[in-house]
């Protein structure tokens, strides 16, 4: 059976799926990126290989897609046929499960986006700019301050009868507002429910500004696992907000499907997880622009690089690197 691998390496978490030709998920993996996308990808590959061996030994991965903020790097390492932006990947993934969706909310670790879909085609989208207020990392930093595990945030929020008003415009000010509300005696449930409302208010006023939000609405990304935020969205939009159990995997599933549709096949070997990959970065120094060039090496051999504005930059850095390696060898 032909299968397709999709890997979504985000700022906070790394997601990967192996899907069959019909978009059914055969194996899934989800874990923290921990600032090391290469290691995270090796770990998800191990998990996927185990699941595939156990349940679908006849599956052969014939195409790979990469998405998420580390897509270039991971795409180069995996030899991916497709490297796609996360907005397209999420739209394709979600549409494969919910053909009738008209609005997709997505809140991840450091970004949030909205995709407007009409008649099964994305027609508009927006992504947060300049500021990470109202994203997953905002929630987890507030959770630390309140000493409540972020996984339990939703249950706390649902217990609240009177959510506290929290200023959600800016992460820093939200935090001082939250401290203030706690100091004057607001119960922690109400504060957490207030935080959920603040996130939703911020989202609808920023990325959602000016967009026509129509049901059916699908909500995904890590924050969609928080039932408190889901309820706040339902209160604010007056519509049912649907969260798929695989909602956090939609980017990975989407890019696997894009790789399938690309039609270029070559057998993928999970053993790539045992190969040594490393990256080296260097400022070019060829002109005052000082491009930061990054090279990806596979067992010490150059496989890809980026960051250069002009062709000379890549040459300079590669040559310099080669000579520094040579001079290090006695």
């Amino acid at each position, binding site marked *: 059976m032909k299968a397709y691998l999709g890997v979504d390496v985000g700022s906070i978490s790394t997601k990967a799926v192996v899907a069959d030709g019909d978009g059914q998920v055969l194996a899934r993996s989800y874990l923290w990126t921990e600032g090391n996308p290469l290691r995270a990808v090796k770990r998800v590959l191990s998990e996927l290989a185990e699941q595939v061996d156990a349940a679908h030994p006849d599956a052969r991965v014939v195409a790979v897609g990469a998405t998420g*903020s580390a897509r270039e790097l991971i795409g180069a390492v995996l030899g991916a046929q497709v490297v*796609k*932006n*996360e*907005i*397209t990947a999420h*739209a394709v993934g979600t549409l494969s499960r919910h053909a009738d969706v008209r609005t997709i909310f997505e809140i991840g670790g450091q970004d949030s986006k909205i995709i407007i879909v*009409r*008649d*099964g*085609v*994305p*027609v*508009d*989208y*927006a*992504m947060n*700019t*300049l500021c990470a207020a109202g994203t997953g990392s905002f929630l987890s930093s507030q959770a630390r301050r309140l000493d409540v595990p972020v996984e339990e945030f939703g249950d706390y929020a649902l217990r609240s009868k009177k959510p506290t008003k929290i200023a959600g415009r800016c992460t820093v000010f939200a935090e001082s507002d939250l401290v203030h509300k706690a100091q004057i005696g607001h119960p922690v449930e109400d504060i957490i429910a207030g935080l959920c409302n603040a996130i939703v208010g911020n989202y609808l006023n920023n990325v959602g*500004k*000016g*967009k*026509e939000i129509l049901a059916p609405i699908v909500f995904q990304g890590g924050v969609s696992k928080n039932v408190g935020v889901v309820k706040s969205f339902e209160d604010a939009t007056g519509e049912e907000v649907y969260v798929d159990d695989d909602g956090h995997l939609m980017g990975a599933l989407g890019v696997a499907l894009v790789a399938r549709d690309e039609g270029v096949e070559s057998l993928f070997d999970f053993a790539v997880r045992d190969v040594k990959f490393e990256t080296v970065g260097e400022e070019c120094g060829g*002109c*005052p*622009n*000082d491009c930061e060039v990054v090279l990806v090496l596979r067992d010490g051999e150059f496989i890809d690089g980026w960051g250069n504005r002009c062709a000379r930059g890549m040459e300079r850095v590669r040559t310099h690197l080669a000579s520094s390696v040579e001079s290090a060898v006695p």
Partner: protein
Amino acid sequence: MSRAGSEYRVSFPHMGNYTVPIVTLASMLDCEIMPPPKMTRRTLELGARYSPEFVCIPFKYNLGNYIEALDQGANLLFQAGGGCRFGYYGEVQEAILQDLGYEFEMVLLAGGFGVLEHYNKFKSRNPRLNMVRAIRHYRLAFRQTRALDRIEDFARRNAGFEVEEGAFDSAFDRFVGELAETRSIADVERVEAAYTEELRSIPVERPEGLLRVGIVGELYVLMEPFSNFFIERELARRGVEVHRYVNVSNMVDHGGRNKNRHLREIIGIADPYLRYHIGADGTESVATTNRLRQEGFDGVLHLKPFGCMPEVNAMSALQRLSREHTFPVLFISFDSQTSETGLATRLDAFCDMLRMRKRRLGA
């Protein structure tokens, strides 16, 4: 007034390829002309370091250009102005540069394209200048501008489909080089004709159902490719036919005695999304977008510096237009913190979206 014209070393901020006509104007001063060094990240770093944090991004680029020019020895700087914060760029930049200890004179040409007013400012720096010569320089500069805009427009619409990568860029660079050598209208006409022919002969393969996208918004980030991370080239690389209507030729055509008629015209096109003017070029952005929608374009990119008031005004009208006609408009703000990766993500997604939409509409 103490200095003779020849002791001046004149400089000015970069804006796209308009260095050629600006040099033509500056040569009225009979002094050394030193355009600032090519824009790099260092230009922006310098500009941002000495600018107010919340000023719009063109201010920071301009200031960076001035500092790099002054460091090379320039002592006479030019600045224009417009109907927004641009109107006080010159005064504020002059004060900042003086505080930094530079010695220079600043000429402010704010207040439109009034030739007589400009003439007096040039004349006071070069007593040998006369009106006949000034007019000759102005006419040559305008003709060079027109040639630049026409050739660039053609390249912009076709570069995405060139068979040999970089063919348009390379021809365009040679064109700008030759245009810089022109000294008469006849020279310009000859160079323009030669390159029009050359550009038309570059082989292109235009696929079925290609994407046509217009870019609208604030003048500087539209016209200075460095400030928009070469967005036109990036779109072309994604196989898009790019159209832009904001350029200096159009600004000249729509200024002066044509101004009121043009304003009436664009408010008519922007109706019903705008019924009154919203400052600087905001109305233009809405009118152009509405026109491109009617002409069957696939989408529009709206570019502005972060915090640009006239273009922020335009956004709510554009959002309504986009919503009512499900016409894709992508909004992009630029400031010194803009990430190139974030921009690439948004452009990729926008082009994918337009393609999926087009396929569906065609089916």
